[in-house]
């Protein structure tokens, strides 16, 4: 952050930060659409707290703080968190939010106990092990051909490609299982498997982002851009594209605002990830202000149909 304290825009640094932000934002928004529609918006936040025991166990097994085992441990627990939540909801008839709350707080507590137990042997600070900062993106690069590309950008590009292939490739199936899982099952689609695949992608996206750009960015991008797009359209296809656009725009504007706006009040630059989250909020409240206007423009019926849906 001190690198940017001057407030000047340096492409070599700011360019990569914005690219990392866009990659994370669009990956999260793509799968986030289905979380919002399935009323599981807070899963990203739940996973961000729940991965702790995965980190602890990965560390206890391998004895190192290398990022690959940590990543695998966290991703496994992330998926576990999603499936346990779903099991509690389906079999235990526990309210969605509550089942998520029970699962992630318990996992977090378990992780904390494990870490305290392991702490005799080595310092394993949950704050430092997993959470990266987007400002550090340009510092850790990998040589690829003639270019030095930040590792974070490579990781997040992979995640984006995965999510894009999944959402575009299974678009019809996703639409059917999201809006009518019963019909999907009758028609022979395995809605349960598709849902599991979605959960795996959510967990991978979340963990990859925690590790590279910090948790607040991905948690916001899972929820706010899709919720914004939902206010403006009733078509799932348009919702997916709109939300990706909002996410990318929030990433660009967020970084610009983080280094520019504080300067107006005599401060140095502030947290980029936080400002990107604030930008998504600005879009949402803007859309909320515009949505009634849109309704008056003769689209009333479709909106009312959507409103009356459960």
């Amino acid at each position, binding site marked *: *952050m001190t690198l940017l304290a001057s407030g000047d825009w340096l492409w070599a640094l700011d360019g990569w930060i914005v690219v990392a932000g866009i990659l994370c934002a669009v990956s999260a928004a793509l799968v986030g659409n289905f979380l919002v529609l399935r009323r599981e*918006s807070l899963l990203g936040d739940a996973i961000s707290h729940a991965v702790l025991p995965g980190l602890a166990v990965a560390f206890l097994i391998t004895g190192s703080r290398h990022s690959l085992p940590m990543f695998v441990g966290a991703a496994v627990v992330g998926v576990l968190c999603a499936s346990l939540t779903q099991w509690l909801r389906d079999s235990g008839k526990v309210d969605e939010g509550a089942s998520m*709350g029970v699962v992630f*707080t318990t996992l977090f507590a378990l992780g904390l*106990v494990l870490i305290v137990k392991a702490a005799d042997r080595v310092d394993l600070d949950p704050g430092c092990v997993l959470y990266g900062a987007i400002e550090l993106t340009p510092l850790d690069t990998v040589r690829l051909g003639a270019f030095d590309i930040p590792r974070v950008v490579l990781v997040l590009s992979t995640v984006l490609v995965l999510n894009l292939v999944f959402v575009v490739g299974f678009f019809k199936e996703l639409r059917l299982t999201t809006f009518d899982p019963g019909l999907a099952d009758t028609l022979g689609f395995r809605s349960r498997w598709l849902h599991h695949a979605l959960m795996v992608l959510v967990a991978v996206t979340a963990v990859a982002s925690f590790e590279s750009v910090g948790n607040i960015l991905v948690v916001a991008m899972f929820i706010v851009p899709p919720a914004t797009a939902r*206010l403006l359209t009733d078509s799932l296809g348009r919702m997916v594209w709109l939300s990706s656009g909002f996410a990318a725009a929030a990433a660009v504007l967020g970084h610009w605002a983080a280094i520019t706006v*504080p300067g107006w009040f005599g401060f140095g630059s502030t947290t980029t990830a*936080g400002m990107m989250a*604030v930008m998504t909020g600005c879009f949402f409240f803007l859309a909320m202000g515009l*949505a009634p206007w849109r309704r008056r423009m003769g689209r009333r019926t479709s909106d009312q149909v959507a409103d009356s849906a459960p």
Partner: protein
Amino acid sequence: MTHISLAVPEIGSSLLAAMGRLGLGDHNTRVVVFASVLLGLASGGVGVFTLLRRRALIGDALSHAMLPGIGVAFLIGSTFGDFGKNLLLLLTGALASGLLGVFTILGIRRWSRTQEDAALGIVLSVFFGLGLVLLGLVQQIGGGHAAGLESFIYGKTASITIRDAFWIAAISVPALALVLVLMKEWSLVCFDEVQARVGGLPIGMVDVVMMGAVVAVLVVGLQAVGVILMIALLVIPAAAARFWTQRVSTMVLISALIGGLSGMVGSLVSAVAEDWPSGATIVLVAASIFGFSLFAGTRRGLFARYRERQSARRQAIGEVNA
């Protein structure tokens, strides 16, 4: 400690006596256990209504929503003197910011078609992002003095002080009283909002009071025991109590008892065994009770529902044979 004993004399003195017998005469331990029990009772009681109103994760959303308030309070405190880290000021900032979060959630629900969970998520992430932005600025003027401001919200483990305990008592007891007084209105809003509206109940007002109580309990709990424990104490006891009963009053009683019991057992275990942090231990005790209730709960537990299905099946077979 005297204030608290005055507030609930019987519970206080009998608890102290019990702990004396356990060999836990240590003053600090008593304070920690006492505060954990009160916090568990209050959040267990309030948590029932957040669960029934389908806002179980409101604690998660609002605890994150408090961060900007803390940043602003610190800014104000350090501008007008050297009391940026004054606890009361920070608590007030957190409270104000949390209440703003409540109004924002209610506003999003009212003026857009956004679902409850997304409304919670929007407030959670946008407010928290704003908080990080403010802390980024605060650190520039506060320097080293502002360090550790985040830990106010993430809390510490096993370090409830006498001052924390006083605040916990000062908020938990009125919150419990509020639950008892407003139980009827809150239940009506949770189960039949239309009926409540027809009956002339000011829904918005009832909602604000209910969530205000959640915010108050959260604020005192957060800085004493940390964010995850507070979310857990609001959700787990209520969700566990749901397996045992269909009546709101019974559910409140069971949930508060589970919360209080988890607080007591968890903090006692952590007092005896040093490598069990109290916050995490309390959550794990509550989670064990939840797990037991999930299987054994007499109303909606897995076993009860299995038996129900079996008896329905036997009855059906009997009818076919007859």
